[in-house]
């Protein structure tokens, strides 16, 4: 078995037509790819953990590709992204941080030259713990219409010696976005912020 032992993969896709206002001409779609893996560092303090980031890269790519597929197969339709992790109770928060590089760069690679930092969150929790994965525009973090989040979780994960890893992508702004701020049409796309 490879260094990354996947117990379970979960995909969630939401298609949002309205939220009490006008029905969207093109529904907003949001998807999450989740993986439950064994935490190789559970139950003890391990100083050197950074090498595991390389081991996670293939899984990150698999999850990023599966998200694009779940949202229709066209990378150019993806406008928002985010990532997160839940560490089982025998692990430490730092183990969730191992997901930043393989998770974030996998999405940027699949989406071409996505410029914005990938918004993220993390926690230690029990099976069934919910995680609100933050979402921002892939090229400019300040695009206000694309500030969003997707709640994810799996009732039987993470067990104590597991990590639950999450990637999220969306196809557009909140369904009734109307609070101003930088618009997607105004992105300069130089610094990943505006």
């Amino acid at each position, binding site marked *: *078995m490879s260094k990354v*032992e*996947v*117990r*379970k*993969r*979960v*995909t*969630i*896709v*939401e*298609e*949002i*037509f*309205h*939220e009490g206002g006008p029905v969207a001409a093109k529904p907003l779609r949001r998807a999450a790819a989740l993986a439950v893996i064994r935490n190789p560092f559970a139950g003890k303090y391990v100083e050197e953990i950074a090498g595991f980031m390389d081991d996670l890269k293939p899984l990150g790519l698999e999850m990023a590709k599966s998200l694009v597929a779940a949202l229709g197969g066209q990378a150019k339709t993806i406008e928002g992204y985010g990532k997160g992790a839940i560490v089982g109770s025998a692990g430490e928060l730092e183990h969730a941080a191992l997901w930043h590089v393989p998770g974030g760069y996998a999405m940027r690679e699949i989406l071409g030259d996505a410029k914005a930092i990938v918004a993220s969150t993390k926690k230690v929790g029990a099976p069934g713990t*919910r995680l609100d994965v933050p979402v921002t525009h892939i090229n400019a973090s300040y695009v206000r219409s694309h500030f969003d989040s997707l*709640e994810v*979780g*799996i*009732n039987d994960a993470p067990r104590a010696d597991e990590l639950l890893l999450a990637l999220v992508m969306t196809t557009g702004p909140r369904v009734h976005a109307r609070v101003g701020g930088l618009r997607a049409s105004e992105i300069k796309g130089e610094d990943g912020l505006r």
Partner: protein
Amino acid sequence: MKAKVRKLITFVEETRTEMGQAIDPPTRRAAAAAVIENPFAGRYIEDLTELTEIGEELGALLTERAIAALGIAGPAAESYGKAAAVGENGELEHAAALLHPKLGTPVRKVLGKGAALIPSSKKRGGLGVPLDIPLGHKDAAFVRSHFDGMEIRVSDAPRANEILVAIAVTDSGRPLPRVGGLRKDQIKGEDGLR
């Protein structure tokens, strides 16, 4: 479409290992859910025909989405189940109207067969309430390896005047079935039971 759909959600779970045992091929199950307006919220209405008709159209739509999410043809499905959660301004009987009179026929049409009762559950609850969808073999309810359940939830549904309705479909039973009983290779498929 009669139903006023706010949102459609699909969930796919794939289990690759369990207690250190490789599951090959992985067990897979999907649930497709709709968040709809409850036309009878907030008052007592004797005749629930409108919801039974909505149940009929959602039976087809959600089953098609579930098998599409699994990437299988209808006849390849092995087990199924259905469930609904009524928002706080509705009554449990509204879930019954959606699920029981007419939803099953289009489910069976999409899946090609389905001699067995479609196991079901229902409840009233608030936003994010978990729904445990019971699962049973579609052609023979006594197939013990396929007694199962799938938990889903949608963080922003059902609102008070909404109903969350879901259909789950699998291409397999539990990951490591070993408690005996009728096996799927012993199905006669005549009475829906054995």
